[in-house]
């Protein structure tokens, strides 16, 4: 079957692919390392599209004379990695807990559902802020907290699927044939319940990137000098009036990435549910 790719999906995939390739190999091709601080006074606050002795700056230079475009690509590595890893971790956790809840359908189900309802009552950002403030900031904390606060949506979807599948004939057939609990769950129920979880996880990537940038902006995520899109925006905040490009460029990178990821996620969801809505 030929897949019809709408124009916005082609453009989104292209942009995302270009961005990933740029972030992975781009920093290796730069003539000047964007993390090294050189002659600050001579090189700082260069406007976008201007050149100095050391080269040409697409997005200008920051307060320390570092090339904003180069740092943007370098930061993209961390931001994309944290976004994808955070969404995957919460997706896996959600799929496991949801399957467990739907399968056990007893007290375990009630415990998991209560935990999920409790966590969903607190706005995710507030929960993230509280956790990030209480534990040592850094990438391991960031990923743990993203996973612990993001699993509920996927768990709910998988639980609903599993509860429906348990009743189906092929599961009953497996039981009659003497399959163990684990085999029924892992071999017959889980594979059939996983599609909505995959789509939700794809949609979670954009969300995780946004949250990472927010926490790093507040100094609770990726710590400088490692660049991430969020802490680059934070770094440009005090120069907003004199050199707005320092804060605006990394924000544009976030917008492009998250828009592309969300459009693709929505499209996958439409295809998975066979509808044209964005449920």
């Amino acid at each position, binding site marked *: 079957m030929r897949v019809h790719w709408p124009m916005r999906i082609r453009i989104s995939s292209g942009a995302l692919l270009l961005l990933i390739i740029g972030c992975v190999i781009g920093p290796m091709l730069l003539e000047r390392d964007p993390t090294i601080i050189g002659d600050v006074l001579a090189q700082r606050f260069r406007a976008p599209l201007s050149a100095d002795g050391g080269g040409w700056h697409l997005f200008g230079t920051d307060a320390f004379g570092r090339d904003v475009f180069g740092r943007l690509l370098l930061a993209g590595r961390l931001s994309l990695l944290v976004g994808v890893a955070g969404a995957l971790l919460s997706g896996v956790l959600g799929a496991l807990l949801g399957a467990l809840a739907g399968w056990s359908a007893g007290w375990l189900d009630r415990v998991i559902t209560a935990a999920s309802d409790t966590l969903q009552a*607190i706005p995710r950002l507030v929960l993230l802020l*509280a956790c990030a403030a209480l534990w040592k900031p850094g990438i391991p904390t960031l990923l743990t907290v993203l996973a612990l606060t993001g699993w509920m949506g996927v768990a709910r979807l998988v639980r609903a699927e599993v509860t429906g599948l348990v009743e189906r004939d092929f599961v009953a057939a497996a039981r009659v044939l003497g399959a163990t609990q684990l085999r029924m769950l892992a071999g017959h129920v889980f594979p059939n319940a996983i599609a909505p979880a995959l789509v939700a996880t794809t949609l979670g990537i954009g969300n995780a990137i946004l949250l990472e940038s927010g926490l790093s902006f*507040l100094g609770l995520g990726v710590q400088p000098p490692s660049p991430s899109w969020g802490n680059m925006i934070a770094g440009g905040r005090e120069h907003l009036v004199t050199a*707005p490009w320092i804060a*605006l460029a990394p924000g544009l990178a976030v917008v492009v990435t998250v828009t592309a990821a*969300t459009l693709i996620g929505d499209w996958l969801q439409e295809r998975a549910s066979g509808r044209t809505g964005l449920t």
Partner: protein
Amino acid sequence: MAHLLRRSGIALALLWLVCTLTFALVHSAPGDAALLLLPPEADAATLVRLRADLGLDAPLAQQYVRWLGNIARGDLGTSLATGRPVLESIRDALPVSLGLGVSSLILTVLIGVTIGSAQARRAGSTTDTWLTIASTTMYSAPTFWLSLACVAAVTVGAAAFGIPPAWRLPAFALRDPGVLDAAAAPLDVLRHAVLPVLVLSLTGAAGVARFARSAIVEASRGDYRRTAVAKGVTAGRAWRRHVVRVALPSIAALVALSVPGIVAGSVFVEGVFAWPGMGKLLLAAVAQRDHPVILAVTLLYATAVIVTNLLTDLALPLLDPRRTRA
């Protein structure tokens, strides 16, 4: 009535679970709250005394029960950073956040539902695609970055275009300290509110539009609409009575769903625009590891979410007669 009691009971249980979770969270954190308060040169005896004063020497279970009892009585403790009762700080901050949040929520729903239904009516058209792209882009923009972009626009941007200072929108704070005239003050606050409310309601509306569109597209698939059109109802009336009306309960549920987003957005918006609300309070508390304030603000936000969920739950049967007996 039984339904009301049951729902309220569930909401209360949820609130208790949230309390327990936040308590566990704070007490699982590494580090000693008393140590944070003391100067580095303090001796061990002072530390012991302070821990006793703060009640940190009691067993955890006892601390938990005492803390729950205090909350039930409305005592949220004192801030570790300022020594002020947390309740007082919240009393100052709450009206600011409530004003910002409620006005943004109203605009969010109005703008979001209008755009979403306009899209659903033209589902699949070029306009629909462009509106989807626009709302997705808005939805994908970090709130704090949009706020910064607005600040840049009204400062450097306005200066670059030569807009006279009197015509520019103020970028920061709730009011102008120079405006003391009672008649001019409300207008001044309104001028200051334009940017924060705009950022908050546009990002929120983008999310609402996405959901409203799908809810209405879903409703427009119903057989009853085709039947209505077939028996001669005009297209406009069929749309209003048989599509939008059917989607109304889902749209009402959206109001509850958009509250956490508004809360999260308001934290950043208050932070960037320097509004002295709950979000700013939370950010300051987070920066200073001020546990009592973090706990109290988190609880309050959770309460807001739980209460709006409860209210929508109770209001749904009014919009959807099928739910009355559920």
